[in-house]
């Protein structure tokens, strides 16, 4: 047992040790040509096609970098996230974490990978087992990752609860999820995702189910954790208004593909892709003027992921559609300004 654990990086020391200094520029996560398709079956066994939830996604993530993935419901962002968490298997392509292929991880190395990736969920009440106390909830990941020493477990639980500002710690330890407010529940969820000292945090709409008053606090908390632990964060949302809080890059996803990648301010000010324009238009700000303005929203609905449109997937809804080009050829990533990529023929 001891020999085995010596071969593997120790999850508790990986961050504090060699991770931070010179290797901070190294790629932490690299998603390469990722395809996540779900098979459709007829009569329970006959093949009837695929749902192409994620269809050719590429991106890299450095240690300490935060990205936001934005898109409407059903665009494949949740499937992408679950694949990164190792809950779905890609049909093609792979994910590299610190140079190791996720598809090749097995047994204890897979367990190590899971300890390196924290997961913050959308619905804080549903994310906590209702029959476990806060102590038990936070202890579970430690038990599963073979932290055998009870005192060490206790110390780590207290430390992480202080980090997410659940004071006084002792009062919260014995409470059950239904005794906590939504904000406190989400803090417990964040504490659970942080307790194994991960290098990457996947946050799936972490504030969408919270009261507006608590949202900012939770976002600030996540921002603070990201800075103090030099975390890489993948922040998934459909709400562009919360993106600015802590991500440096925004990836816009449409129909299983990333259509635009840019720095946050760049994208919000100079959006290139017609879909991003539409998305920004739809974002509502509490402004009295909005009540009188009619917003232009592209007609139609998101395409079927079983039979996606040929060429650019947005072309049936696009106001700038160019016949015989957009509906025939898949646009590659163009770079209209340095560091700003858009998959649209307008920028060829």
């Amino acid at each position, binding site marked *: 047992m001891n020999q085995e654990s010596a071969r593997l990086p120790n999850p508790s020391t990986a961050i504090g040790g060699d991770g931070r200094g010179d290797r901070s520029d190294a790629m932490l996560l690299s998603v390469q040509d990722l395809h996540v398709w779900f098979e459709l079956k007829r009569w329970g066994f006959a093949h009837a096609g695929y749902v192409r939830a994620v269809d050719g996604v590429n991106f890299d993530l450095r240690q300490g970098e935060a990205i936001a993935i934005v898109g409407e419901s059903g665009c494949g962002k949740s499937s992408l996230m679950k694949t990164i968490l*190792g809950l779905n298997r890609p049909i093609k392509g792979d994910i590299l974490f610190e140079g190791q292929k996720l598809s090749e991880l097995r047994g204890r190395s897979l367990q190590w990978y*899971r300890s390196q990736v924290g*997961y913050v*969920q959308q*619905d804080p009440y549903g994310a906590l087992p209702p029959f476990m106390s806060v102590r038990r909830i936070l202890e579970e990941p430690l038990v599963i990752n073979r932290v055998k020493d009870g005192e060490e477990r206790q110390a780590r639980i207290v430390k992480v609860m202080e980090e997410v500002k659940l004071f006084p710690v002792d009062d919260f330890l014995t409470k059950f999820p239904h005794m906590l407010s939504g904000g406190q529940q989400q803090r417990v969820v964040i504490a*659970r995702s942080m307790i194994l000292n991960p290098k990457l945090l996947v946050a799936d709409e972490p504030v969408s189910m919270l009261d507006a008053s608590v949202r900012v606090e939770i976002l600030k908390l996540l921002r603070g954790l990201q800075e103090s632990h030099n975390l890489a964060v993948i922040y998934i949302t459909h709400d562009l208004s919360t993106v600015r809080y802590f991500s440096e890059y925004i990836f816009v996803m449409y129909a299983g593909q990333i259509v635009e990648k840019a720095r946050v301010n760049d994208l919000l000010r100079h959006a290139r892709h017609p879909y991003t324009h539409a998305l920004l238009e739809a974002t509502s700000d509490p402004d009295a003027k909005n009540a009188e303005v009619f917003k232009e929203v592209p007609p139609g609905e998101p395409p079927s992921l079983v039979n996606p449109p040929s060429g650019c997937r947005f072309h049936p809804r696009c106001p700038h559609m160019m016949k015989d080009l957009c509906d025939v050829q898949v646009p590659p990533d163009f770079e209209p300004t340095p560091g700003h990529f858009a998959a649209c023929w307008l920028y060829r």
Partner: protein
Amino acid sequence: MSALQRSFRELLRYPSAIVGLIIIAGLLILSAYTLITIPYREAIRLWRGGEEVWYQNPKNAGPTWFNYFTRRKLSESMILSSKEGLGKTISQDSQGNNRIVISFPIDYSFDTFPLDLSIYFTSVYQDKPPHVSITWLTPDGREIRIGDFSVKRTQTFRLAQDSKLLRRLGGQSPEKGLFAKPNVSPPVPLKGEYELRIEGFTFEPNSDVDAEFVVYGQLHGLAGTDHLRRDLTVALLWGTPVALAFGLLAALGTTITTMVIAAFGVWFGGWVDEIIQRITEINLVLPFLPILIMVSTFYSRSIWVILGVTIVLSIFGGAIKTYRAVFLQVKESPYIEAARAYGASNLRIIFAYLTPRIIPMLIPQLVVLIPSFVFLEASLAVLGLGDPVLPTWGKIINDAQANGALYQGYYYWVLEPAALLIITGLAFAMLGFSLDRIFNPRLRGL
């Protein structure tokens, strides 16, 4: 743990739960008492031993507490034995022969005559058997000679079969003639202190004689007796632990295995789930009782075999579908996804994340299920498929039915085990319904 404690404290707010708990505690104490005072071998001896165990009991006698409810007091059984030195005096004459006087006082205060009278003699001698002469002294001072004879080593003297005594009593059978008021017709018992005096003469130095006088009454013991003179108390007492053990083991065995199988099916899905579902559907259309009857007829009627078959047949029952429906919902909860994301193993998810969600639903069901298995065991016994060795409640009812208890008016024979079955069922049902209200708060308003 604290959640369980809270539920328990809440339970005490329901009067029906308290009554149920008290009855269940009573049954458990009764079981413990039975197992300690009448160990298994002793129970089997008392229930299957044969005539020599039961000879002192009357046939089909009712329980003695009948007399508390009737004005006309029925005769109760009495056993008087000189073996413990009761009323025995020994004196020696000049030739070295012993004169033994055994005197049994009988306080008779009943309004009916006993059923039968017998004296059982045991004696010790080499060649010359002792001689006894028996006299009956009535409260009004009459003295009736019952008989003179020499006794063998063991000898049964049935008073009703002695023609000389019959003639001496003027044609009245002794159980009536000895206790009747003189010259009253129809005969009425005379209440008061009677005495049976046995004078024995032994003709050898170490010779001895003992007597046991049995008055077979219409009532005997706490629970009465059956057609074989067996005391029903033994069977009623022993039926308690057997019924509780059967009910509890069957209920626990089925619910827990069913839950675990349902959880495995839901979690692994695919062909595992398919197989479990198909087995359940086939099992649901198989007739349960006929299979049990077949097993007990052709294979074994041991209660443990029946218990095993019951559990096996009930595991893939309708409950698997209910649990599956709940598990399918729980399986999709975000907290299960989170557990997978931090690396919980399949077994850990099934036992630590899936099944705890169903426990609140399971506990009331388990409690309500216990009496249904108790009843099942009783029903099988009534059908004549009970355990051949163990005395159980169902077997008493079966015996009663086979011997026409209800035609002949031996109601106690059926009602005693039936009452215990009803009390057991009621207790668990009351507890179960209260638990249901606690664990499923939506029912509270009802």
